């Protein structure tokens, strides 16, 4: 008796570790400002007393920007605390209690602040004021903090990012990328996921 390992059609494409759209690679992309650069944008944030919002719909790079802001602020000597907003009210109460305990001048970097209830939003702002904290949030709508950066995407931005990710010899991806960009209404994360599947299946190489 012999056992043959036959390749399944599903594995004929790119193994996950070599997929150019693997999350490991897309997460390493640098945020691209539409105008200005880190220096000018950090100056703008300083003028806002480090209390501001990164605004935009899903898949526009808000979390990427927040993560990279975290690194920059720590490098500049700021004390930061990065959190993701919990969706449950009880967990939001814990977040408020923990915020209350942060050392003065800490900058709280809060992802997905649109999940906060109206009451918790107000309580958070009061705590930030009382404890002299910074607060930079990502949110879908600018409602309770001035906008620092509004994240937008464009097909030009998508092409620029894909050019960094894809192998030089890769071809035929432009039409797929454009179609996916339209289909997902500018959500670049979803475009990456769709293109990931095309490389995984071998449809794109």
């Amino acid at each position: 008796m012999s056992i043959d390992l036959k390749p399944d059609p599903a594995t004929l494409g790119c193994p996950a570790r070599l997929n150019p759209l693997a999350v490991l690679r897309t997460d390493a992309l640098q945020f691209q400002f539409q105008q200005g650069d880190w220096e000018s944008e950090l100056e703008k944030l300083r003028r806002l007393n480090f209390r501001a919002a990164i605004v935009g719909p899903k898949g526009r790079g808000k979390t990427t920007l927040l993560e990279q802001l975290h690194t920059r602020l720590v490098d500049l000597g700021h004390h930061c605390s990065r959190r993701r907003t919990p969706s449950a009210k009880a967990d939001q109460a814990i977040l408020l209690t923990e915020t209350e305990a942060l050392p003065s001048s800490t900058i709280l970097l809060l992802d997905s602040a649109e999940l906060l209830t109206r009451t918790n939003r107000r309580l958070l702002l009061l705590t930030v004021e009382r404890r002299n904290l910074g607060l930079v949030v990502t949110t879908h709508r600018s409602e309770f903090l001035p906008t620092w950066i509004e994240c937008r995407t464009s097909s030009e931005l998508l092409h620029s990012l894909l050019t960094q990710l894809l192998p030089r010899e890769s071809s035929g991806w432009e039409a797929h990328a454009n179609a996916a960009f339209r289909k997902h209404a500018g959500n670049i994360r979803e475009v990456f996921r769709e293109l990931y599947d095309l490389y995984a299946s071998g449809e794109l190489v």
Partner: protein
Amino acid sequence: MIALKLDKPKLHYDIDEPIVGEVIWDGLTERCDLIELRLLWYTSGKGDRDLLVIARIAVMKPGVSGKQRFHFDPPGGPYSFSGALISLVWAIEAVTVPLSDSQIIEFTLAPSGNEVRIGATSGINA
């Protein structure tokens, strides 16, 4: 600069083989307290990354330049594998503390020397 060199040039290891090699460094500052060598695996693919450090070796007060042999016990598993959605990759990483330089070298851990391909179907011929 940090460089990692594994003794086996093909970078394929069986699960009961130790991972042996050498770390070489040059041009580090005197502020470097240690170089940490980590035996780890991580996942890569469509979803979020998982990472597990299996063992660590510290090279204390490495100085500006030098080299040192290292030996990690056989990790035993899991095997290196790849499918369309996820891969598991083994690696040795060298990192200075405080962080100023790092180096990573990947290898395959599997009985045959080749990573396991998830989704491969087995046919049994009697």
